[in-house]
């Protein structure tokens, strides 16, 4: 649920529950975006051609 949904109420329950969920989703989303973008840049720069980390 988003704050602009008609069911949304600005109270502690909604802010804590949904705030927590969006916070965790943001971390997961940002982390994965960073990994994918960096992998694309690394690949473009010729890294990862059979070497092992």
């Amino acid at each position, binding site marked *: 649920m988003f704050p602009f949904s008609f069911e949304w109420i600005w109270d502690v329950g909604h802010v804590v529950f949904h705030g927590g969920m969006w916070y965790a989703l943001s971390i997961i989303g940002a982390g994965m975006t960073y*990994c994918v973008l*960096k992998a694309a840049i*690394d690949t473009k720069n010729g890294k990862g051609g059979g070497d092992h980390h």
Partner: protein
Amino acid sequence: MDSALIPKGVERCSLKRFLLGQAIVGAVVLWGVYAMILCWMKGLNQTNMNDSFGFALWIWADLAVIAVGGGAFFTGLLRYVIGLKDLKNIINYAVLIGVCCYGSALLILAIDIGQPLRGWFIFWHANVHSMLTEVAFCLSLYMAVLIIEYIPLLLENRQVDKIPFFHNLSHNMHVVMAVFAATGAFLSCFHQGSLGGVSGVLFGRPFAFREGIFIWPWTFFLFTWSAAACGPCFTILVTKITEKITNKKLVKDNVIDLLAKISGWMICSYIIAKTIDTLYWAFVTAPHAGFNVMDFYDDNFWAHGIWILIMEIVICGYIPAIILLREKTRQNQKLLWTAAILATIGICLNRWVLVMQPMSMPVMTFDEWVLYLPSWQEIATTILPIAGGIMVIAFSYRYLPIFPQEQELNPVED
């Protein structure tokens, strides 16, 4: 035939044998899928749910797999956040077991809600006064974290790893894995706790009701603690079973010993806290609600007798704790097996006691004890994710480098 996909330097059984094994387990999966389709097509009348038991056998199965899957978040926390490097040799398997357990939990929930097409309602029309909403949020997000932790393993398959983008992606995910592991630990602490909190806040069910701090009953903390304590034991148990089946040593003894030692201390502290909680409940909370502790146990000894309390706390609590705490007993393989099995049974029994037994006991003066007998559809759909988990583990073991020490422990002669 599939040798190009198998990790380098390790030996696997023939493809024919592997597929035969998968087909046998697959037959069980198909049986479960048939029961699942029945539940979805015909409705929850396929279960033996009644006014006393509104969640069927599934609620116990759900809580039990989530609890034993706790090994993933706790091992991840120890490895990536606290920095115990030795655990890198078992973390992949802990994650894989976690994926299977949490995948099972979500599948069971999808059947239990009866209308999976409306599963998203809990996110959109969330009841922010319910601990189960928190469970749904954290469970779904933690499943996403587990999949993220599993993806690098998939990308390390011999053929996939040859593609530079996937190789780089896997490397980058390893680099930031601590962030995901910390997020996973945070999410796990809350959903494990809230599952316990759901029982603890039931003031109309004095068997389950507990006092606590602020909005959290003691069961909130005990559930998280017990999952962190017994989850690693389940990881050890599955590792040992895998070693037996493959007839190979897959993880060095010092790694298992470290995890067993940590688990031992966790079980010891947990079981002391659980004992204090039980004594306080028996001598303070229950009498204040007008009950004698023996009112909570049925005259039918084998159904809901006092044995279940002794079994949970003494046999499946103190005994594994004592075994795992002492180096000598911990390093004895038979005793290690015993401790891992007892701790796993103990946590499953704890979940049973807190979700099934409160529903069984009479609440009104005219009520009687109710014994729940699940339908075959419930049993089949409970076995389904276990069989599915076995297939996923077998597939992952065959094609992915799950055990970093396998090559060293089992050198292959060319």
